[in-house]
């Protein structure tokens, strides 16, 4: 398989996308008014690679596309498109300095896309694109759509219409060639039967393919696809994968795609770039990226109870992570633990993906993080989704926390700062966030080992009153606090370190305690909002809430089902995961 070999060969040396980039995005920044949609983004697209640009909604992927294809003029940065092999660094610098838009070199050509209007990017630099919401010429036939794509060569052939009006034979020949080319791509996309139907009449999946065929008709060197699999069913997605591979392998076209469907991304991508809030958080081979904790954190979510990109919660997670860091393993161990599962998982994933009937579950899987029903699905799930599940089902936080720690501290800033206008601040924000847990570590850790009354070193720093806690749960073990909506394994553990083990303890919290815990856990207000105390009162009475019922049924993946008694210590989580 091409992907695998490529990754291997470039494993240690410079990866293909750095050695032979067809497109380099350098320090790209795009501001809309005060909003930074993309901040100082750098990445390369390797020649002959399929490169995926992924990230959550609003991460700025489409903005990057629009900058690359000239629909937006970037605020800052350089976008270099290269025809011909190699980095051509000298030529790039020469063109940049010269003030030209592009220059042909003997090796091919260098194009500075940020200087070119959109139609020249397509026409001269040979960058084709498709659109998130399909933009076909609905009232024109499929064939006409493909002929419009060959506008520029045909214009020349028609003598800029003069020869065409006079009916010169040279134009007729050119038109026939254009039709042949169109038919070639119609055959590749299984649309030749529909050639004379209006494009608006095609079913959705066909329209998506037609858009790709149309883009290919301009004879691109780089094909940019904006969510090509959106709205496709799994079978169509699989066909799309084949088509993209065909385009890459047989036509030597590099592909840059935005995609939400991790199935598509992971199967066909040679290289994955992950954006979050306009900032690159990961960049590498698909295998490496999908198990990258930053990616998991940003894209697939951290925790059931975490509301995405609410900064305080990120901090919260970061903190726990830091604590766990101190409690258990050393850094090197973490790294190996992180890599191992990725490797182990890969063959399985590939195999099941190839088997068609399982495809639908695979398709649905990344969006599901469900517990009980899923053994079969787990097998086919994409690694990143699964890693989350596993940790929640088996090893609440230890294994996951170190990874999320970095990711979260790294991206704490952007959530707010991106909107505020300084994505660059994100880097700065990362440092203090990292530093904080480090100082807290010694305070939190020794607590359980000492007095029955838990001592928190800087307890006085938080408003309100530290709740009463016991070193150990009462006989019979602590309650399953995750049956309270809003408390997941991470928070449960943190509460345990405060000496809170039972529902009745939480039920007894007064305003002051709530305030203190809220501040300590860095999510003031959430306890009230989620009504932990009210829930705890019910549960302490032995009653049930709608949420606890679901937890007990096993429907809440990141809560711990069925456990009502003591919480077992799961310090061996990492081993289990690997």
């Amino acid at each position, binding site marked *: 398989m091409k992907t695998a070999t490529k990754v291997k060969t470039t494993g240690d040396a410079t990866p293909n996308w750095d050695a032979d980039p067809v497109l380099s995005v350098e320090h790209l920044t795009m501001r809309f008014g005060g909003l930074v949609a993309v901040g100082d983004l750098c990445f390369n697209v390797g020649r002959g690679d399929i490169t995926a640009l992924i990230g959550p909604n609003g991460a700025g992927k489409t903005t990057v596309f629009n900058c690359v*294809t*000239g*629909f937006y003029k970037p605020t800052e940065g350089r976008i270099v498109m290269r025809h011909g092999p190699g980095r051509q660094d000298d030529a790039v610098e020469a063109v940049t300095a010269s003030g030209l838009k592009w220059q042909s070199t003997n090796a091919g050509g260098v194009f500075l896309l940020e200087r070119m209007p*959109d*139609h*020249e*990017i*397509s*026409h001269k630099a040979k960058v*084709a*694109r498709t*659109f998130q919401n399909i*933009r*076909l*010429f*609905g*009232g*024109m*036939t499929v*064939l*006409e759509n493909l*002929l*419009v*794509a*060959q*506008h*520029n060569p*045909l*214009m020349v052939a*028609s003598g*800029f*219409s003069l020869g*065409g*009006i006079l*009916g010169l034979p040279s*134009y007729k020949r050119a*038109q026939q060639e254009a*039709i042949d080319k169109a*038919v070639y791509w119609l055959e590749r996309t299984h649309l*030749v039967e529909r*050639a*004379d*139907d*209006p494009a*608006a*009449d095609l079913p959705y999946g066909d329209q998506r393919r037609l858009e790709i065929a*149309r*883009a290919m008709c*301009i004879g691109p060197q780089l094909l940019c696809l904006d969510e090509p699999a959106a709205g496709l069913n799994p079978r169509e997605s699989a066909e799309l994968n084949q088509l993209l591979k065909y385009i890459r392998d047989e036509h030597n076209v590099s592909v840059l795609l935005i995609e939400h469907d991790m199935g598509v991304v992971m199967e066909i991508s040679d290289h994955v770039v992950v954006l979050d809030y306009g900032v690159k958080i990961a960049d590498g081979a698909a295998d490496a990226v999908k198990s990258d904790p930053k990616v998991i954190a940003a894209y697939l979510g951290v925790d059931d109870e975490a509301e995405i990109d609410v900064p305080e919660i990120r901090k919260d997670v970061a903190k726990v992570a830091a604590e766990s860091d101190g409690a258990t393993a050393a850094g090197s161990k973490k790294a190996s633990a992180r890599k191992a599962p990725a490797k182990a998982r890969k063959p399985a994933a590939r195999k099941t993906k190839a088997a068609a009937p399982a495809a639908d579950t695979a398709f649905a899987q990344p969006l599901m993080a469900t517990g009980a029903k899923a053994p079969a699905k787990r097998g086919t799930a994409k690694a990143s989704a699964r890693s989350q599940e596993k940790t929640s089902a088996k090893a609440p936080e230890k294994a996951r926390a170190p990874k999320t720690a970095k990711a979260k501290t790294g991206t704490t800033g952007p959530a707010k700062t991106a909107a505020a206008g300084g994505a660059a601040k994100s880097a700065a924000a990362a440092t203090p966030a990292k530093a904080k847990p480090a100082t807290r570590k010694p305070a939190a850790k020794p607590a359980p080992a000492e007095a029955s009354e838990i001592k928190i070193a800087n307890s006085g720093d938080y408003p309100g009153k530290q709740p009463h806690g016991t070193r150990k749960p009462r006989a019979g073990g602590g309650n399953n606090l995750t049956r309270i909506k809003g408390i997941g394994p991470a928070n449960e553990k943190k509460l345990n370190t405060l000496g809170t083990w039972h529902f009745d303890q939480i039920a007894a919290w007064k305003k002051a305690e709530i305030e203190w815990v809220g501040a300590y856990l860095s999510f003031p207000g959430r306890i009230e909002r989620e009504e932990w105390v009210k829930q705890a009162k019910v549960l302490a009475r032995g009653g049930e809430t709608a949420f606890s019922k679901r937890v007990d049924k096993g429907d809440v993946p990141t809560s711990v089902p069925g456990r009502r008694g003591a919480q077992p210590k799961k310090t061996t989580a990492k081993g289990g995961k690997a």
Partner: protein
Amino acid sequence: MAVSGTKTPVAGPQGDPNSLQASIKDAAMAAFLAGVLGFFFIGIRTDIAPGGLDLKMRWGAWIISILIVFAGRLLLNLFVYKTRRPVTRNLSIGLSGSESRLAQAGKVLKWGLFAFALILPFFFTTFFPGRDRQFIDLAILIMTYIMLGWGLNIVVGLAGLLDLGYVAFYAVGAYSFALLAQYLDFGFWLALPLAGLLAATWGVILGFPVLRLRGDYLAIVTLAFGEIIRVVLLNWYEFTKGPDGISGIPKPTFFGLELKRGEGGFADFFGIAYDPIQRFIFLYYIIFILALITNFVTMRLRRLPIGRAWEALREDEIACRSLGINTRNTKLTAFAIGAMFGGFAGSFFATRQGFISPESFTFLESAIILAIVVLGGLGSQIGVVIAAVVMIGGIEMLRNLGFLQQVFGSGFDPVQYRMLIFGLAMVLIMVWKPRGLISTREPSAVLKEKKRIGADMVAQGEGH
């Protein structure tokens, strides 16, 4: 949770619309409205009288108008609005078949019309010898509008750019010829290409800065441009003679032969008897050929990359740009070519009239040409022909309704009602067929089988 949950028996949302009672009630409402609307206009008339304005009450006319509305609405309610669905939907469903048949018959129709147009002057001279001049003159007028419609069709129908100032190019063409003739003594045939060129240049001059604008803004700027040209023509007295207009514009010659009586004239050269009708026939064939050229070029262009780019532009401008099409140049070409044909038609107009003044180039002309294009069906060449015949022929026919004076008495002047009826016809045809008479689109390239494209697929442009 919300609204009361009481169960009511299953019933339709409204009462039966067919019941006589409902119809009468509705008609009464309409009559009341007519009374309100008509009170200050039909019921009262202000007239200039010595010492100010005089007020005249016309209760009779007012009451009659109310009764007419009541009766009309009642009849409509009882016999036309048979279902709850609006009348337009009924009509379009009922007639959708006829349109496809019309489209199928298009080819036959096209050649039939062509053949008829070819022999038309002789048809008139043979069958209507008494009124042939009038009819041929009308045919020339209609043909001029057909040509203008075809020219504007490139801009509005194909490229999807809403142009409300097309008459400006018509004026540029007419004045170019008139001024060239007056100051430089140019003849028609020499001035014709120059006029077209000048109009195209004006098209580019206007288009260059404003083509960035979105549809409606483009519309108002083109309208403004049309007005600017007219105002300049009106006020630049030294050059254009302002409101007096330019007269004595030379007639076209037939390869150097003037169509005049006596020595050296066309009749004299060919040794036939002079008849003033010959000039009309000659003019008819000039505009016929000009129109045919317009049609031929348009049809050819549609099958060329530039024409496809126009249509693609109408469908989706952003997609066009992503495919490497220079949209500004493409729009400019459409504007320039459309303007050029407008210019040709303008010089023909000047030579036919022999006299032009800014009066002939008001916004109403632009509106009529646009209406012809839209009523005919955007992008449809044959549609323009039908619409021009119906609308222009229609209004001119209204001039001949003298017999109505016998019905309504001698005070009744049907010519007065001409434009009122024209306006109403515009509204009614549009409501009846919002997409125009011929709304299907013919593909410009075919792989296996030519399929017409339904109007609901085709975009109108100017909205992106």
